[in-house]
């Protein structure tokens, strides 16, 4: 089907892509909603009835049409979003309760783009014509904005929740594990901000005393970013552990992080490091005269 061509102020030959996208979303609202109802985001939130999912999809498509009509494709503050902001927030919260993190949620919203772009392409006799490409790009921008709007609802709606979760993280995510006589380890997961680092240091020092540990392993496999502040916290913790008579080993520095640390100019030369937690443990054990060797068995190579 041919997209209608009319004269506008901005372009004498054809309607601007945003207007075309808006018209398309109005015209094909039902098809768009039907496709979205099968996408993970809608399907998993509206489990009771598919009609509900379709209905929700319709209102999102209508909102996007309004945003595009206003020519505000990349504006997360566009008034057109107001109609669905609450709904999107509830959907996001619902996914959150099911254990989907913001990355996962972002992916799910991103996955809404393909079905609707496919429909849009099909509107053009030649989907590769410049006009079609322009419209697809406009729609892509719009869908990117939708994603930001959804993610934003999780931030603003969840400020309180986040604060509470952070408190919990401080306490929960820093378990000090006794791995062996005189050997303790903390697997660090997530962001090491100042508050968290302080908790880590305190619980590690407590454990060193309680377990009379001589070796303390800080495993940073689960730390996504090591910047100069995180590095500084690590070095302080290592120094403090040393004062308590324990040798500290930092394990789990991934290759990408190692390269980044070096380029940043951080010198971890005084810190004992090992590639993995297992290597760190093996080191600590060997220093205590414990050797790990495979048992001798008669059946060779059986696992």
């Amino acid at each position, binding site marked *: 089907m041919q997209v209608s061509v009319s004269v506008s102020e901005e372009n004498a030959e054809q309607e601007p892509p945003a207007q075309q996208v808006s018209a398309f979303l109005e015209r094909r609202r039902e098809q768009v909603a039907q496709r979205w109802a099968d996408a993970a985001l809608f399907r998993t939130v509206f489990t009771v009835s598919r009609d509900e999912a379709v209905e929700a999809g319709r209102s999102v498509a209508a909102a996007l049409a309004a945003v595009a009509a206003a020519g505000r494709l990349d504006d997360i503050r566009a008034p057109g979003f107001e109609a669905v902001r609450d709904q999107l927030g509830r959907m996001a919260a619902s996914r959150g309760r099911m254990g989907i993190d913001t990355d996962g949620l972002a992916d799910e919203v991103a996955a809404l783009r393909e079905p609707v772009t496919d429909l849009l392409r099909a509107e053009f006799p030649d989907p590769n014509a410049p006009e079609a490409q322009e419209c697809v790009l406009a729609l892509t921008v719009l869908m990117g*904005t939708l994603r930001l709007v959804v993610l934003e609802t999780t931030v603003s709606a969840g400020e309180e929740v986040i604060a509470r979760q952070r408190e919990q993280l401080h306490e929960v995510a820093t378990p000090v594990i006794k791995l062996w006589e005189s050997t303790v380890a903390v697997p660090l997961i997530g962001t090491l901000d100042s508050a968290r680092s302080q908790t880590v240091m305190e619980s590690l020092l407590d454990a060193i005393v309680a377990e009379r540990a001589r070796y303390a392993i800080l495993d940073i496999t689960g730390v996504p*970013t*090591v910047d*100069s502040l995180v*590095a500084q916290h690590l070095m302080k913790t290592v120094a403090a552990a040393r004062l308590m008579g324990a040798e500290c080993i930092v394990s789990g520095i991934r290759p*990408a992080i190692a390269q980044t640390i070096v380029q940043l100019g951080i010198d971890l030369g005084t810190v004992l490091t090992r590639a993995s937690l297992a290597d760190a443990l093996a080191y600590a054990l060997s220093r205590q005269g414990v050797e790990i060797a495979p048992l001798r068995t008669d059946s060779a190579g059986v696992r």
Partner: protein
Amino acid sequence: MRASRHAAPASLPIGSDADLAWVRQQVRQAAAELGFGLVQQTKLVTAASELARNTLVHGGGGHVEITPLDSGPAPGLRLAFVDAGPGIRDLDRAMTDGYTSGGGLGLGLSGAKRLVQEFEVDTRPGEGTTVTVTAWATVVPPARPGP
């Protein structure tokens, strides 16, 4: 002028530690979408973490503008960290490895510069600081036909 008219720029606030985490996540995601490899992502996110923290700690808060650049030969990401804080009086000194006016390691500015391809500081005492960095995704060169 390389900023693409198609890509959607985003502006994120920098006013708390939680904002820093959010900025890191968004930068990582934008870089991943543009095709940055894992090492490149890590470098850019780390630079962003340093600069955003400077905006928060030294600049008293501000925002970051994230602009995907996809009209050039390789996709890129531009990040502008903007604050209306005290500005940097002696930029040469601030850019020196190990110089800190607080209790930091003094590696944020100089280190971030090493982690990106383009680095620019616009600062005015009493008015504020804008640090703009750009990183380009490495494009694997097409295999050259044999002789």
